[in-house]
């Protein structure tokens, strides 16, 4: 629709998403997740997953190294806090720029290959960054300890306007401390913005080009399009999203460690995207929320809580159930994640969004048996 800014469906989706995100502290409270620390992580990993989906969901290139950009974003933000100012905005700007440059270089090299070769190349670059951050680049990354703010950082800009801090320095926004719900709404604003841009990209001619790279790259090339600039743009954009998410994590908790760049962290964002639904707009965000929610809830459970939960059973059976279920919670919650993931990939490759779509289709079919056109919901 060229005359209107957004189609009606898009607008509704965007408004709905905004309301759901902003109201999270209210509707998540009954689930025991209504506290700012977790909500901030929901927002941050939501941004990360939305960005990853722009690459994997639209172009089909499976990157196993996106955590590198996330880590680079974190390090850049912390350095901006240390050297320039504790204000969050410059840190975010620098983080996005630096991770975009990283993504440009790495993407330029990796996109010369496709398929599994691309995945391995991105993995190789991410592991290189991780290993270097741990060893030789210790002056920049502070190695195993992680980069953190100290009282005697120079903070040139803050010093210039005569701003001083008492106690442990924390990131601010125009002098306002970004902790608690202020931090959450700061991150939420960025998630909504990130979602908006992703929506615009998906609906744009550029987004169509990316989708056609996924469905048939050879045909695109025969039609006379050079696909590489498009794929590279998608790679850089998703790298910028990752950098933004990394910077936000540094804003809410100004400590950057190398383990953020490890390949298991890259695997996590792949899991989020798949779990929610590859190629859909809200899917990756939902996937990120679910994984972070269960990580938080399941890893906090212990034997005592389980014993209380199973206490309605006869003694022997209750003990047995506690022993069995304790393998799946606490430290063992990764086992639950792995099982869930295997089941999703086997039975529901489209992720949760496909499940929702199937249920919706089934409901519609049973509700109006005469309806003969099954329109796919807008993605």
């Amino acid at each position, binding site marked *: 629709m060229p005359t209107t800014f957004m189609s009606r469906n898009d607008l509704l989706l965007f408004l709905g998403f905004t309301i759901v995100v902003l109201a999270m502290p209210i509707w998540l409270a009954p689930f025991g997740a209504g506290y700012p620390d977790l909500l901030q992580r929901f927002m941050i990993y939501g941004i990360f997953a939305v960005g990853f989906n722009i690459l994997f969901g639209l172009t089909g290139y499976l990157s196993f190294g996106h955590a590198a950009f996330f880590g680079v974003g974190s390090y850049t933000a912390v350095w901006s806090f240390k050297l320039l100012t504790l204000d969050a905005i410059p840190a975010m700007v620098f983080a996005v720029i630096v991770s975009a440059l990283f993504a440009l270089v790495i993407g330029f090299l990796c996109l010369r290959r496709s398929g*599994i070769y691309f995945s391995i190349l991105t993995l*190789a670059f991410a592991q290189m960054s991780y290993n270097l951050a741990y060893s030789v680049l210790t002056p920049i990354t502070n190695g195993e300890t992680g980069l953190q703010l100290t009282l005697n950082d120079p903070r040139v800009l803050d010093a210039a306007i005569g701003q001083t801090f008492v106690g442990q320095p924390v990131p601010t926004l125009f002098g306002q401390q970004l902790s608690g719900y202020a931090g959450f709404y700061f991150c939420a604003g960025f998630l909504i913005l990130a979602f908006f841009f992703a929506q615009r990209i998906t609906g744009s001619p550029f987004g169509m080009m990316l989708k056609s790279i996924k469905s048939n790259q050879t045909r695109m090339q025969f039609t006379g399009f050079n696909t590489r600039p498009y794929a590279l743009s998608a790679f850089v954009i998703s790298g910028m999203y990752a950098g933004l998410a990394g910077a936000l994590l540094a804003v809410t908790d100004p400590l950057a460690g190398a383990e953020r760049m490890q390949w298991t962290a890259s695997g996590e964002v792949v899991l989020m995207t798949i779990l929610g639904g590859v190629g859909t707009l809200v899917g990756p965000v939902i996937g990120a929320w679910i994984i972070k929610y269960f990580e938080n809830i399941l890893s906090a459970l212990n034997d005592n809580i389980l014993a209380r939960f199973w206490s309605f059973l006869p003694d022997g059976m209750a003990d047995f159930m506690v022993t069995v279920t304790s393998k799946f919670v606490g430290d063992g919650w*990764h086992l639950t994640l792995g099982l869930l993931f295997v089941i999703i990939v086997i039975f529901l490759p489209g992720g949760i969004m496909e499940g929702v779509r199937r249920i919706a289709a089934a409901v519609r079919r049973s509700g109006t048996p005469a309806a003969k056109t099954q329109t796919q919901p807008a993605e």
Partner: protein
Amino acid sequence: MFEVIFLQFLNGLDKGAAYALIALGLTLVFGTLGVVNFAHGALFMLGAFCAVTVRMFLTMETVTIDPTKLSPWGSPLEVREPLVQAWLGDFGAVLVNYSVPFSILITIPIMLLVGIALERGIIKHFYKRPHAEQILVTFGLAIVAQEVIKSIFGPNPIPQPMPTDLRGAADIGAFLGMQANVITYPLWRLIYFVFSAVVIAGVFAFLQFTTFGMVVRAGMADRETVGLLGINIDRRFTVMFGLAAVVAGMAGVMYTPLLPPNYHLGMDFLVLSFVVVVVGGMGSLPGAVAAGFLLGILQSFASMTQVKAIVPGIDQIIIYLVAVVILLVRPRGLLGRRGVMES
């Protein structure tokens, strides 16, 4: 100078041997079934934990209290004796001592079963699916295997002693007619290298000189035609998956004295062996073996202090750097076939 280089070369061999064995199995699975198996590192780890389990059973002890003797602290002396030793006498003692090589005998059937069950149970349903989904499901399986091991054996590495007779170092320099005690090399690493050479040769011989291997090779070249000839190629490919699992498992068992196994052993080796496979060329068995040894030796040279003084941090990234360079200048890896995995 020559001695130093030769020693580094030797040092790279055992790690290279492990890479080569894992990469061989990965390539075997990819070449036959066309599946990118991210759970292969987990099979390596499972093999290592077979050795741990065998040793746990072998070292179960009986504790009897000998009232006639006193321990240095004045309490009755506790006599601990491994059950196996009590039952089998000296042979039992040898068994405990040689638990690691002995575990191989038990690991082979276990890994064969695990491999076949995995292929029939899950991987079978993924032949027609995109490679991305194969990567994802096997990645999930790898997480599950890793977490199961963690919940059984705990998060800490479990050291496995090597047999007492094989603990020393071999004086390879003297053996080759050079000055004595210049080039010495731990005996177990030498054994690991010889072992892997035997296994690799065995796999190649199996594929090259048996009818079964011939059919499998034909199936790798053109699966459909072989199927049309009335040969049940699927069953043979399942066996090949089992074989790949056995190779990975054996590699894991023999590696335990060199590196105490813990639950993320598989993931640590997986990334590197994938790099090895890609460098060697997807689907090329000789390529996988060659690249395994090549990268192992390169890594060993990169960790020399003289090299690190010139390029700091090179030991951390050499493998990935080589992989990036090779993939960019030789897209199919060292010995890759045309048209494999190029979507």
